[in-house]
């Protein structure tokens, strides 16, 4: 007997896969809406912890999806969520790559790409905003978010150093 939660997980991420223009970072608010507000698989605190773990681990940021699956239904849940998240978009990519050469310079293709750019920017900004609201409950946390943002914008410092410094401040009980 397959637990119903696995079907639900698969269904949620199969849909999200095709909505994720701009990648996983663009759909954080929608994932949060579905897994926290609608399905209650995670609390706000769980969600922001899983996001932190996914960022601290090496690998693409879509890993947050596997951690949500893991919270909802263990290791099997992680695999199901990940496969569902990557399956439809990968199949689409495979078939579009077949015909891409014919459309690369088509005016409509260029118009679509220019049209998607600002939508993606708005979505990623939404993700940053929602994550900040979810995580930051004190002035120190807001300061860390702000300083990290400025360092990432103005220096070439590797992000891992910023995450490590923030982890150290948090471990000392300062956040």
């Amino acid at each position, binding site marked *: 007997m397959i637990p119903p939660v696995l079907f639900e997980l698969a269904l949620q991420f199969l849909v999200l896969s095709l*909505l994720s*223009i*701009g*990648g996983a*970072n663009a759909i954080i*608010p*929608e994932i949060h*809406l579905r897994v926290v507000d609608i399905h209650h698989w995670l609390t706000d605190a769980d969600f*922001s*912890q899983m996001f932190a*773990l996914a960022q*601290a681990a*090496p*690998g*693409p*940021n*879509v890993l947050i999806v*596997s951690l949500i699956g893991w919270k909802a239904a263990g290791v099997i849940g992680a695999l199901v969520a990940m496969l569902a998240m990557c399956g439809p*978009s*990968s199949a*689409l*990519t*495979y078939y*579009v*790559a077949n015909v891409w050469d014919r459309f690369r310079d088509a*005016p409509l293709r260029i*118009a*679509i790409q*220019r*049209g*998607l*750019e*600002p*939508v993606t*920017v*708005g979505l990623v*900004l939404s993700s940053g*905003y929602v*994550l*900040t609201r979810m*995580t*930051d409950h004190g002035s120190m*946390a807001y300061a*860390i*978010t702000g300083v*990290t*943002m400025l360092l*990432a914008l103005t220096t070439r410092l*590797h992000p*891992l150093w*910023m*995450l490590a410094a*923030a982890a150290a*401040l*948090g*471990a*000392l*009980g*300062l*956040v």
Partner: protein
Amino acid sequence: MNAADGPPPIPHVTTRSLFIEFLKVGMSGFGGVLPFARRMLVERRQWLNDTEFTEVLSLSQFLPGPNIVNVAIIVGRRFCGPIGSVAAALGLMLMPLAFVLLLAMLFAKFAEIEAVRGACTGVSAAASGLVLALALKMGKTIRHAPWQIGIAIIAFVAIGVARQPLLWVLAALVPLSVACSWWRRG
């Protein structure tokens, strides 16, 4: 005939080497895998030249799904068809997936310790800042077109502030934005 004449030879790439090379890329990518994928594909193995890589990347960003997974799908397909795509994507995700699950299990085990929870909150706050910075960096490409700035603001207010469902926002906003883009082409 000189080797520099004519089109460069198509590199011979096996399913096995796709899997192994993407496995290495997956393991090396702290804070973003894309630069490591580029280094492997263009510089180390020379499976793609610079222009080809940019094309693969722009197609990956154009389509839904994690960009780096799409890159693996396209590169795998180019050399070995569907099996190649599966090998590349699987190789890419295998180690990061195992590692992050291990990390989550360790975290669950030690989550009662206040310092561990505090560290996690700190990382989360910093990581939020990284996502905000990413959005602003991406925003540089659209800052000269007022209609694009307008669309980005609408997307932000609808999704980030009003928390409307993504499907409806995209269904309304993508056609509008593509129409603006078509009208403004030139």
